[in-house]
């Protein structure tokens, strides 16, 4: 009769790695759309090119490891990695930098450790940090957002993409750059005198962050991850910024809203630190993990040398995740109250 004799459970739910990864990709769409609106098609180009490089590399590695490449390419996980990295890159990064970044993410961030599921560090952030250290100039060349300058056309974008060295369009310090470079101005002076500051945070950036928030909330609703890490990170960042605001003095760490809605804050909270593989496992662990990233992001922004701090904060906490796990084993049914 040829009966299957597998063990229970015999039923399986609808969830699959492919569905999870596809949901993450879909959820980036609002954010990417708003980025494209404010900065032009650069980010889109990066995502597409980065994705191609990522797929090619993944296929190659799987060939080398003598596995079937098909299932690994179809699960979208490598596309998630490359897409998240490309979103974090400045919109008009030259192609070869994109390629180096994606290669670092896929090879150094993931396959060196044994592939999907085995990477202790967030692969997108590994790629980002490699680029930030190797190409600091290009990595801080953010174009000026719509409203402050002309947005490049598709043609310009291609030109910029294939340029040899660095973006020669109009670049502009981001709000976080301005905070870091601030020399003795009161917060109120700074935010009112610079065109980059908008109603809530930075022009363009505030909307980009809000769009990523929408995508992130949708993922939360889809139960792709739990609320613990993002909420903890945003709460910790808010608290740190409040403590460091110092009444808006010239040595202030900057307004809370600017911290929350600038740079990679929201994108990081919902798309980067929620990477399950490299974060803490229990809910309590994820609270700690997220909160620590929030504090680190603030500290690096306020006192460090890098304009945005997310990548470093995430990598540091990736490193700490196993220790967090060790100390946050959840209380088990019937084991009494030892929470």
């Amino acid at each position, binding site marked *: *009769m040829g*009966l*299957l*004799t*597998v*063990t*229970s*459970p*015999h*039923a*399986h*739910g609808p*969830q*699959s*790695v492919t*569905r*999870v990864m596809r949901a993450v990709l879909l959820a980036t769409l609002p954010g990417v759309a708003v980025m494209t609106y404010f900065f032009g098609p650069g980010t889109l180009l990066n995502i597409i090119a980065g994705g191609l490089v990522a797929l090619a590399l993944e296929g190659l590695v799987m060939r080398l490891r003598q596995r079937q490449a098909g*299932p690994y390419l179809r*699960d979208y*996980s490598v596309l998630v990695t490359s897409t998240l990295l490309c979103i974090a890159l400045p919109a008009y990064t030259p192609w070869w930098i994109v390629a180096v970044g994606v290669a670092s993410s896929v090879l150094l961030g993931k396959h060196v450790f044994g*592939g*999907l*599921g*085995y990477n202790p560090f967030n692969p997108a952030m590994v790629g980002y940090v490699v680029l930030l250290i190797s190409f600091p100039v290009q990595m801080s060349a953010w174009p000026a957002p719509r409203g402050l300058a002309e947005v490049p056309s598709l043609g310009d974008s291609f030109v910029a993409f294939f340029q040899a060295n660095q973006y020669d369009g109009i670049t502009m310090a981001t709000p976080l750059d301005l905070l870091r470079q601030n020399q003795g101005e009161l917060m109120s002076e700074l935010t009112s005198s610079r065109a980059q500051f908008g109603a809530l945070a930075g022009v363009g950036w505030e909307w980009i962050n809000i769009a990523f928030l929408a995508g992130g909330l949708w993922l939360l609703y889809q*139960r*792709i*991850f*739990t609320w613990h890490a993002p909420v903890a990170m945003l709460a910790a960042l808010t608290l740190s910024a409040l403590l460091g605001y110092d009444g808006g003095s010239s040595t202030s760490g900057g307004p809370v809203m600017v911290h929350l809605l600038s740079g990679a804050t929201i994108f990081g909270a919902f798309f980067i630190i929620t990477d*399950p*593989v490299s*974060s803490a*496992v*229990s*809910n309590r662990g*994820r609270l700690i993990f997220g909160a620590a990233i929030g504090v680190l992001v603030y500290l690096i922004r306020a006192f460090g040398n890098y304009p945005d701090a997310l990548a470093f904060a995430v990598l540091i906490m990736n490193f700490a995740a196993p220790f967090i*796990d060790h100390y946050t*084993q*959840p*209380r*088990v*049914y*019937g*084991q*009494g109250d030892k929470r």
Partner: protein
Amino acid sequence: MRKIHDIHGGIHPPERKALSRPGELQTPPMPGRLVLPLSQHIGKPAQPVVAVGDQVLGGQLIAEAEGPVSVPVHAPTSGTITAVDRFAIPHASGLEDCCVEIAPDGTDRWVELNGIDDYRAFEPSELVSLARNAGIAGMGGAGFPTAVKLMAREGRSIDTVIINGTECEPYITADDTIMQCQPREIVLGAQMLAYIVGAEHIVIGVEDNKPTAFAAMRDAASGIDNRIEVVSFPTKYPSGGEKQLIEILTGKQVPSGGLPSDIGILCNNPGTAVAIYEAIANGRPLTRRIVTLTGEALQNPGNFEAMLGTPISHLLDAAGYRAEQNNRLIHGGPMMGFALHSADIPIIKTTNCILAPTEQELPTPAPAQPCIRCGMCAEACPAELLPQQLYWFARAKDNDSLEQHNLFDCIECGACSWVCPSQIPLVQYYRAGKAAINEARQEKVRSDRSRARFEARQERVEREAAEREAKRAQRKAAAQRKAEGSDGEDPVKAAIARAKARKQAEESTE
């Protein structure tokens, strides 16, 4: 109103219960043979008291309990004993075990049954032995001997009897059906259980996807006994796990490694309550049960009141089995049942469901992908474990970490595997892990025992050597005394020498 508590985790798999039309009970045709395993319960197998060629009547004892944790077996109908031998039994690994085979004669003649009218006139212990003699083992899950659960235990009193009418496994409607068809017997059985253990409360818990059964139970209970509460609570898998149901209904948790009786609770299945009622009120032993036959490979799925020992193939035929569409045969439900190796296996006291799905319905599992540590399994786990960590440890065969992460609190409900996007057969790893740890523990007991034996032997050898040595010393002393020609001259000296020899002997045994 009783407060309903929520449990951690849980899932909502498709229920598929309407397929087997709960509430309609069919009787299959008389099978050509019955195969009754002597071990349909947890504990020692029963001992056969019949031989090949014997004629038996329905209800006649054919195998008696062996010791206190064992359950007797009775003939479900009249016929001839045709074999006492090893046959395949319902088991995940296709085991064979000792069984009694009966060829029914078709007349269904029974022994005379003597029930008792007023159970309250009897001592609880007398009722417990009625339950024991009726061959009752838990009919919902593992088949623990019911009489053992009922026996009074030092320092533990039961205040609540719970009747577990949750039936949270998808597909299965056997309890739903018995609650609709025999609610009165369930209530009476529950009252008897409460009388036996001296409980003050009776709670009948029904998931809210069974409104007809709930109404039937409520109507049966109302006006009979105001200690009885019939409670409905939200459907969620695995609310019917004993520990989970206890938390839902009482808010209390059974301590890890403990029993419900540790917190004053006795939990039984509706089928078991009916069996208790039948045993006490009618003197009828447990020889039949309701089995759900379901799945899309059956033309006529439904609930069948089947004699224990009926071959599954016989029931499948009665339900319109289309073997060519069936991809696996499951004993139990899709979440916790096990796959059978063939249909030539009898149903037993714990068989609540035979599921014959098509490939489309329950597809062959996809190859597992790596764990992405998404934590969905931990969100789903009713025992609040970290299934992904257990998985890593199980793969690494790290038994210490497995125990530290409370592997033994896993109830093998399968919720984690069900949600896992990487389709990892997690429960399989936990079963293997538990088996390995149990094996290691037994190994340790064995080696402790043989070490103890070795040490005892060593000690004996040394002691004997020392005794020989002491005797020789004594002889030597005596010879010396003789040589000195002062036999008995100095008793003090002699005593000292004796004491010395004794001391020496003692030292050398140490």
